[in-house]
C-alpha cells in the first residue's frame, strides 16, 4: 500500500519539467531568455550523434549462406557438454527442518517422479464420452424450483440427559448398528461416479509350505505382467497351521495398486478380452461389494492364465504356480448401487440377487 502512494521524495527527484506545475500553462505569456537555450543545445546533441545505424548494416552473402544451425548440429560428432547447473534431487529425505529439501514428486527433477500419462486409454474415453453423461441422466432427480428437502435428523444422536454422566459424552451412533455409512449426495455433473483405482491382490497359500519363495516370485511376476505395476509383498497377519504360515514371518501375499492410465488399460483388457473367455462365467456376484462403492471379485488361476500377457509366454510360468487373485474395483460412488450402475455400464455383468 505504501509503495502505491507517491513518495515525498518523488517530487524532488523528478526533473522539474515532468512535475505537474501548479500554475495553469495556458495563461503563461511571459518569455524568458533561458527558454531559448535548451532547444539550441538539443540540436547540438543531435548533430553529435552518429548517423550510421546498425539496422542499415548489410550482412555479407557468404555469412548468410553458411548459417545453418540444424546442419551444424547434425554434423557434430560429439554431444555438447550439458548446461553447467543441473539440479539434482537429494537422495534422502532428511526431515522438514533440513535446508536441503527434495522437490515435490510431481516435479520432473524429483526422484519419485513418474512421467505420463502417455496414452488415452479406450476405457477412459468410453467413460468420458458415453458412460458419464448416461449416468448423470439416469441419476437425475428433478425437483421443482423452490423445493426444499425435508430436514433429516442428525446421524449421530444426542444422549437424553437422564443421567448426569451424559454430560460431555461423545454422541451416540446411528440406530441399528454402529456403522456410519457414507453420505450419498445427489449425483450432479461434478460427482459422477468413476473408477478410482483397481487393486489386484493375491494370497499365495503355498508361499511358506515348501520353504522356497518361488511361489511368491511367480505370483509377483504374474501380477506385475498383467497389471504393468510393480507389486508389493505382504507378510501374514495370522498363523495358518495347515499351510505352515506364521504371522509376521512369512511373506504370503502380493498386491498391485493401479491408478490412472494403468488402471484404465487393465480394465479395458479385463472386460474386453479376459472375462469373455472364462468358461461358464456368469458375471460378478450381485451381493459383492463393501456397501461403500467398492466391488470385489475373484479369478481362479485358470482365469488368470487367460490374460494375453501370460499367454504370450506361458512357458515362463510354472503352470501350478500361476496365482489366482482378487480384483477390487474402487469407485468414487458412495453406495454399491451406484458402483454397479457404473461398472455394468462399463461392461461388467452382474448376476444373482443384487444387494445394495
Amino acid at each position, binding site marked *: 500500500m505504501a509503495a502505491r502512494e507517491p513518495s515525498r521524495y518523488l517530487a524532488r527527484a523528478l526533473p522539474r519539467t515532468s512535475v505537474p506545475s501548479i500554475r495553469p500553462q495556458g495563461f503563461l505569456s511571459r518569455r524568458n531568455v533561458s527558454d531559448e537555450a535548451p532547444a539550441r543545445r538539443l540540436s547540438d546533441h543531435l548533430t553529435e550523434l552518429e548517423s550510421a545505424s546498425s539496422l542499415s548494416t548489410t550482412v555479407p552473402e557468404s555469412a548468410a549462406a553458411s548459417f545453418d544451425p540444424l546442419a551444424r548440429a547434425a554434423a557434430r560428432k560429439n554431444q555438447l557438454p550439458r548446461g553447467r547447473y543441473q539440479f539434482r534431487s537429494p537422495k534422502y529425505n532428511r526431515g522438514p527442518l533440513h535446508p536441503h529439501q527434495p522437490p515435490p514428486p510431481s516435479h520432473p527433477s524429483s*526422484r519419485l517422479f513418474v512421467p505420463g500419462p502417455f496414452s488415452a486409454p479406450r476405457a477412459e474415453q468410453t467413460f468420458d464420452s458415453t458412460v458419464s453423461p448416461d449416468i448423470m441422466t439416469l441419476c437425475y432427480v428433478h425437483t421443482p424450483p423452490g423445493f426444499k428437502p425435508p430436514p433429516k435428523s442428525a446421524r449421530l444422536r444426542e444422549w437424553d440427559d437422564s443421567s448426569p454422566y451424559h454430560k460431555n459424552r461423545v454422541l451416540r451412533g446411528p440406530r441399528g448398528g454402529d456403522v456410519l455409512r457414507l453420505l450419498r449426495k445427489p449425483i450432479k455433473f461434478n460427482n459422477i461416479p468413476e473408477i478410482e483405482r483397481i487393486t489386484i491382490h493375491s494370497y499365495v497359500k503355498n508361499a511358506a509350505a515348501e520353504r522356497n519363495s518361488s511361489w511368491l516370485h511367480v505370483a509377483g511376476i504374474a501380477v506385475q505382467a498383467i497389471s504393468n505395476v510393480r507389486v508389493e509383498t505382504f507378510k501374514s497377519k495370522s498363523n495358518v497351521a495347515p499351510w505352515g504360515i506364521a504371522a509376521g514371518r512369512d511373506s504370503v501375499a502380493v498386491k498391485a495398486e493401479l491408478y490412472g492410465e494403468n488402471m484404465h488399460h487393465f480394465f479395458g483388457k479385463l472386460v474386453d*478380452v479376459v472375462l469373455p473367455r472364462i468358461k461358464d462365467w456368469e458375471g460378478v456376484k450381485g451381493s459383492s461389494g463393501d456397501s461403500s462403492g467398492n466391488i470385489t471379485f475373484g479369478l481362479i488361476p485358470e482365469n488368470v492364465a487367460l490374460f494375453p500377457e501370460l499367454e504370450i509366454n506361458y512357458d515362463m510360468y510354472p503352470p501350478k504356480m500361476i496365482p489366482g487373485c482378487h480384483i477390487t474395483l474402487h469407485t468414487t460412488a458412495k453406495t454399491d448401487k451406484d458402483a454397479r450402475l457404473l461398472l455394468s455400464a462399463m*461392461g461388467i455383468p452382474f448376476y444373482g440377487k443384487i444387494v445394495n
Partner: protein
Amino acid sequence: MSMHTSLRRTAATITNSTTTILPTRLPTQSSSTTFICSQCRHATLLRRPKRPYTFTQLITLSDGSTFTHRTTSPAPIYRSTRDTRNSLLWNPSSSKLMNVEEDEAGRLAAFRARFGRSYDASAPVADEETAKDPAAAKKAEADAKAQAKEDQEEEDNLLDLISAFGQNEAPPPPEKKPFKPSGKK
C-alpha cells in the same frame, strides 16, 4: 509440557503450543482426532519408482474392431477369438449366439405340444390340435373369440379409465357409467 510435545508430536490437540517448534505444515485434522507421530530423525531414502517396460499393443476384437493399449506383452498385435462381441453374456439378445435347437422334423415341437407346459406350447400347439379333430378346432375358435372379446373389453375399460382421469371432479355421473360393466366381468 514443552518437552512432552517435542518428543511426541500431537498434531491436532495442541492448543498451547508456545515453546515447541512445529513444522510449517499446520494440522488439518479435526480437533477431535489425536494421533501421535513419533519423530524419526534418520534420513529416508527416496527410492526411484520401478516401472516395468510396456509396449503398445493393438488388440483386434473378433468383429474386426481394434484398439491399442499399453501392456508388458511384446506382441504387437493380439487377435482375440472370444470377446465381448461374440459372447452371449454381453449379447443376451443375439439369436446368432444363442444355441437354438434345430428342429426340422418337428419332433421336439410335437413332444412339447403333448407334454410341455403352457409357455412352451404357444403357437404350434393350436395348429396341431386343430389338425386332429374339428370339434377341438371349433372349441378353440370359440375360446379365441371369447378371449378376444375379453381383451377388447378390458382395453375399452382401460381407455375409459384414461379418458376419465382428469374429469372426475367436474361431471362425475356420466363418466362413471362405462365403469359398471367392468364389475360384471
